[in-house]
Structure formats: structure tokens, C-alpha cells
């Protein structure tokens, strides 16, 4: 699919650099959220690791990183103008994201099934932090969905795919956010 009336490439390049930097301000601001969650984790529960499944935690980490890589590769495909690959990668990223979401919910179910008291300090901070993360996943899934739907409707060109890039950057933040939470909640 071709893009109607694309902007001159060089013009676009400079603009994109600015958009990228401006967008990273937003990503930095959202990084603060994860910092606070991790700080609260140590403030409330010390370094106690709660009774949540280590296996599921590791699985979420693998799945979400894989998903983020797919989104990144969709962006790379857009750089090369490979339209089919964009849609395929976005599709993969989206469903892997859904899988990560479900795995976190499964972790919750597992803890509840284990019969642990809901208000254990190490669990309280776990509910809260993973709950925050699930909200980010929902936002990210919407953004990936929008990027894909835009790709089908308008298409991306090597010169003009900022929407796709922004989506993949946001999705990377979500993935990195999980990795940070995973390290703080599951490992140390």
C-alpha cells in the first residue's frame, strides 16, 4: 500500500528527531511511576519476596520482552517499507501482550489459590505494582491495536511512520517497566 503525498524525506527526518525527543520526555515521566512503585515496595515490605510463582514471573518477562522485540521489528520493517512484515509483527506483539496480561492475572489467581492472606505486606505491594503495570499493558495494547489498524488503513512508508515508532517505543517502556518490577519483586 502506498502513502498518499508523503512529506519530503529530509524535512520529515528532522521533525521526527524532535518528536522522538519530545516523546521520550513522556517516557521519562512514566519511568518515574515505576521508580515510585519500586520505592514503595521496599518501604512497605522490605526486600521480602512474596509467595508468588517465580515460574510465572519469569514467563511474563520472556513473553513481554519477546513482544517488545516484535514491536521493535515492526518498526524496523517500516524503515525498510516491508508492509506485510509490519502487520505480522504488530499482530504478534499484540497477542504476546495479551498473553503477558493473562499470565500476570494467572499469578494473582495462583497466590489466591495458595490461601495466603491478601494483606501480607509483600503481597499488597505486589497487587498494587502489577495492577499498575496491567493498566499500562491495556494502554499499550490499545496503542498497538491503533498502530496496526492505521497500518491497514493508511499504511506506513520508510519516511513516515512516526505513529508506529511511538507505539513501539511506548511498548518498550511497558516491557522495561515489567523487567524493573520483576527484578525488584521476584529477584531482590
Amino acid at each position, binding site marked *: 500500500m502506498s502513502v498518499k503525498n508523503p512529506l519530503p524525506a529530509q524535512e520529515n527526518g528532522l521533525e521526527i528527531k524532535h518528536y522522538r525527543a*519530545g516523546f521520550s520526555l513522556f517516557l521519562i515521566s512514566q519511568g518515574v511511576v515505576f521508580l515510585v512503585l519500586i520505592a514503595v515496595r521496599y518501604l512497605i515490605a522490605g526486600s521480602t519476596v512474596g509467595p508468588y510463582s517465580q515460574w510465572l514471573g519469569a514467563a511474563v518477562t520472556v513473553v513481554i520482552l519477546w513482544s517488545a522485540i516484535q514491536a521493535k521489528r515492526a518498526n524496523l520493517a517500516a524503515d525498510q517499507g516491508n508492509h506485510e512484515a509490519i502487520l505480522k509483527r504488530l499482530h504478534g506483539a499484540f497477542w504476546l501482550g495479551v498473553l503477558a496480561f493473562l499470565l500476570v492475572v494467572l499469578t494473582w489467581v495462583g497466590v489466591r489459590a495458595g490461601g495466603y492472606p491478601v*494483606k501480607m505486606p509483600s503481597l499488597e505491594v505486589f497487587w498494587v505494582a502489577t495492577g499498575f503495570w496491567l493498566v499500562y499493558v491495556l494502554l499499550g495494547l490499545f496503542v498497538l491495536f491503533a498502530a496496526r489498524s492505521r497500518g491497514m488503513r493508511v499504511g506506513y512508508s520508510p519516511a513516515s511512520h512516526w505513529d508506529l515508532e511511538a507505539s513501539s517505543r511506548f511498548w518498550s517502556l511497558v516491557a522495561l517497566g515489567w523487567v524493573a518490577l520483576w527484578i525488584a519483586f521476584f529477584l531482590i
Partner: protein
Amino acid sequence: MAQPLTKDGMTPKPRPVAPLPPVLRGFLWAAIGFIVLAAMAAWLDPSPVSPYLTAVGAIAGWFGAVIGWLLGIGGYEHIVKPMMGFPSPAVRTSGWRRYYEYALDHKVIGLQYLGASTGTFFIAGLIAMAMRFQLMNYRPTLFHYPQDYLNAVGIHGTLMMFTVATVAMVGGLGNYFVPLMIGTRETMFPKASGLSVWLVPLGVLTVAMSPLLGQWTTGWRGYEPLAASDGNGLLYYYMGVFALTTSSLIVAINLTATILFKRTKGMTWNRLPLFAWGILTVSLLNIIWLPEIQTTFILGMLDKVMPLNLFNVFGQPLGYEYLFWLFGHPEVYIVVLPALAIWSEIIPVMGRKSLFARPIAVLGLVFVMLLSGMVWAHHMFTMMRYSEMLPFSFFTEMISIPTGFAYLAVIGTLWNSRLRLTTPTLLVLMSMFNFLIGGLTGLFLADVPANLQLHNTFFVVGHFHYTIIGGMVFSWMAAMYYWLPKFSGRTYSEFWGKFGAIWVFVAFNATFLNFFILGLHGMNRWVSAYPKYLQPENFWTSIAAFFLGAGFAINVIHIVWAWVKGPKVRENPWDAKTLEWRTSSPPPTKNFDTLPVVVGSFYTYGDGVPDPVEMPVAGIDTKDSRV
């Protein structure tokens, strides 16, 4: 970049003829969103006492209302659908209706912010009047129960901080003037900016109506562990402030990116106007600290609604206070930095004298920004360990050094100037006087042994009203009078302007100087009833406060009159040099016909100083920032 909105390369669709005005549609969709999500929550998590609306449902419904409101106001056509690849519709660019719709023009958005701030200033101001009326008597009169009064205190503080103090000069004047002052036609993220402003009325409404869900008594902090035993209205305090801070966060990101990347040719960092520096430093603070407090508020909300034990006796009873004040102190510099910047903007123009020690003035703003995150715990001297007292009192006292740089620059500029004593000048000088008292009383509060007596008394209340009203509101008024010709092409009456300024100044000092005496005399905060011996002082303080309220009304009426009916004035009535005066008043939609090129400093005066701006001949578009 004349057509930034069509980055996908498509011509905009014609503006759709809406069956409902956007504001009404927003309300309707918000109501639908609320009902759907509240009902879902009530179904999933039923409460035995209230089948239709539960605490969880109120939260879920609120998020539904936010989504409905933002989509209804224009987010649906202008953001969501274009994200999916549908073409963006055009926005209204003329007529009064554009102020009640989704807009992309930073000037319209700025005025929307200003309008929302001014309106809220009045709501919260009326609450203050009611509080002062109550305090005329030592026993309950107007507020029959202390929780009524405490809830009023909380709403007054919350609205004043999050909708007036942090919004009027950043979202309002910043959005309006920063792009003009740095010579660009638009901001970096106009679409997000157009939507963010509509979070303000929503947040104000949420906070102001929160007592309907149950009264809360925590003041503007909403602090745990007290929050746990407060009414559910506190949930809407958390949510309302969440909306308001989200709005400010978007403003911060947008204006930072704009200042970084949209400066016109020749607008180097050494030439960047002081006000833009002020907004830049504030925005960096906002980008770091607003997400911090938003996370804290969501944690507080969850702690209350689940309920969890994060911030009570089983968790960390002081945890919420730590997290709150970690944001809370940068917040006051978020409030005051643009005010300090405005002083250096107005005084050189009015004194016809070069700004003294400009690098020092800029460094002052930057160092206040850097230090502001290191002083916060002085709000907790009576709670903290002894070992923490010395470092925090150290940083607290040190921050007065960069704050003093603002005075250094202005005083150096005033010396041997040829000062035109106009209303904006007068207001800046008054602001300097008031903020000085605010700062000097800060010395007493930063001193731990004295703080152990002054903490949580009216001395503190006096201190921060001197910094916020005295520093920010007076400077805001100065900026409004100074830029009035820019907004409307009309000017104010010098007599009524000075009359209003002097009125407010006298009434303000008569009110808040008394607060220091009251505090020393044993009047503590957050009380609607107090020992009888304090009544006479409180009575006269209240009388002065009513005069203060009337004074603000006089100024607003005068400004509105001047805006609409004031005498017409030439385009650059102050002979100022900054770029916002290099276009017509009010500025056209695209700000400049040709983008100006900066070749010198805006703050250098004197014989033979060349014009700092070159206007390229029409037709040769210089594009935007290529510094």
C-alpha cells in the same frame, strides 16, 4: 511548518457539523461512561449496603466519565480516529465558540487554561471567604460541624494549588506566550495540548463535588493514615487531582519540547527570554514530580478503597507523608518560578534598562529547580528522626541563595533605571515585597528549634500565603496587566489598575501579617473552633480578608472590562523587545506572517543598541528552529 496536522499527508476533512455542542456531548458521554462502568463495578463487586453505587464503582465510573468526557469533547474525532488512520477534521479557528471546543491553537488553549484558572480562583476564593467568616467566631457558626470546615479547607487548598497556582502561569500564560516569545507558530504536541485543557474543568468539578460522596478532613494533602477513616469523598479528591496533574504534565511535556525544538532562527539559549526559562525549569520539575504524586495518589486511593495497609499502623504510617512532600516541596517552586521569571521580564521593559546579570538570573531559576527536590522533609520536622534535621534544614536554608538571585537581577536592573511606574511595575514591586516577607519568615521555619513551635500554626499558613499569593498571584496580575494589550489590542485604565493593585496589596498584608501573630499566639491550623482569647485578632483578620476578596473581584472586573471595552492601543505599547510584541494584537492564528530572526539580546537597552529582531521579507519562509 504551515500544515502540521496533516502529517499523514491528507487534507483535513471539513469540520463536521456536530448535532450537539462538544461540551454538552462531553457531558452526555461522560454520564454514559460513568453509568456503564459504575454499573459493571457494582455488578462485579456488589456491596450489601448500596446496590447501585459502591466506592469501587465510583472510581470505575469516574474513569468511564473521564474517557467519555475526553472523547465527547473532541478526542474521538481528533485523536482516536486519526490514530487509526482516519483523516483529522479541521478545528474552528474563529468566533467565541472555539473557546468551548477542542482547539489546536496554543493561544486558544492558553485562554482556556486561563479562564479555567480564573473561574476556579473565584470558587476557591469564595470558600476562603466562608472559612474566614467562620473564624470570626471562636465557636461554630457557618460550618456547624468541624468536618464541614475541614472539607472546605481541603477543597480550597486543592483547587488553589492544582488549578490556580500551578496552572494559571504555566498552562495559561505559558501556553499563550511561550510559542510567541520563542518565535514559532505552534507547539510541539498541539493535539495532546488541546485535549489536556479539558481535564481541568473535569478535575475541578470532581474535587469541588467530592463531599457528596462523604466528607474528608485531611486538607490538601489527602494524607494516610487519616484518609482511611475519612469519607469516600477523599477518593474523588485523589481522582480530581489526578486529572488536574495529568493536564499539567501534558503542558509540561509539550512546552519543554516546544522550547527545545521550535525556537526560531537565532534564538540561542543565551537569548531565550526569561519567561521561557521559567517555564522550562518549571516543566522539567513537573515532568519528574507530577508522575510521582500521581502514583502516590493512586496508591492512596487503593489503600483506602481496597482497603490495604500500606500507609497505616501495619505498614508505614509516615510513608504517604514522605511521598507527598517529596512532590510537595518542588510544587511550591513550580508555583513560584514563573513568577520570578516574570519580574525579570517586566522590570527591564518598564525601567528602559538592560537586565542586570542575566546569566545569574537564569542560573537562579535552574538552581532552585535542582535544589527543590532536596528540601522537602522540612515539612516533617516534627515527625522526623533527630538525625535528619540537620541536613534538611541545611538544604532548606541554602535554597534561599538561588531564590535571592531573582532579587539580585531585579534590584540591579532597578538601580539608575528610568522606571515607568505603571500598574504592572507596581504589582511586580509589591510581589517582591510580599515574597520577601514569605522568604524571611521561611528562615524562621527552616530553623528547627523555632520550627518545633511554629510548625502547623497559622505562622506557617501566613508564610505560604505570602509566597503563593504574594509571589505568584501578584505576579500573575502583573503579567495580566502587562500583556493585556497583547491579548486584546486594548489597554486598561491606569487609575483603576493602580487603585486595584493598592487595594489588594493593603488588604493582603492586613490579612496575612495577622496570621504570623496569630500563629505565635497559639492558633493552630485546621480548626473551626479555637480558644476564645484568639477571637478579636481573628475577627479583624477576617474583615481584612473580605476586603482582599473584594480587591481581587475589582481587578478581575477591571481586566475583563479593559479586555472588551478598554481604549485601543498601539501594538507595542510598552516598547518591549521580546518577540510576542512583533506581531499584531491579538496575534493572528498563525502568529507571524514570516518567522522573525533573532540577532541580539532582548534585554539590552541604551543608545545605539540595534534591534534584536530581523523580520525577513515576506515570501521567504525561514521555516522554524535551525539553530
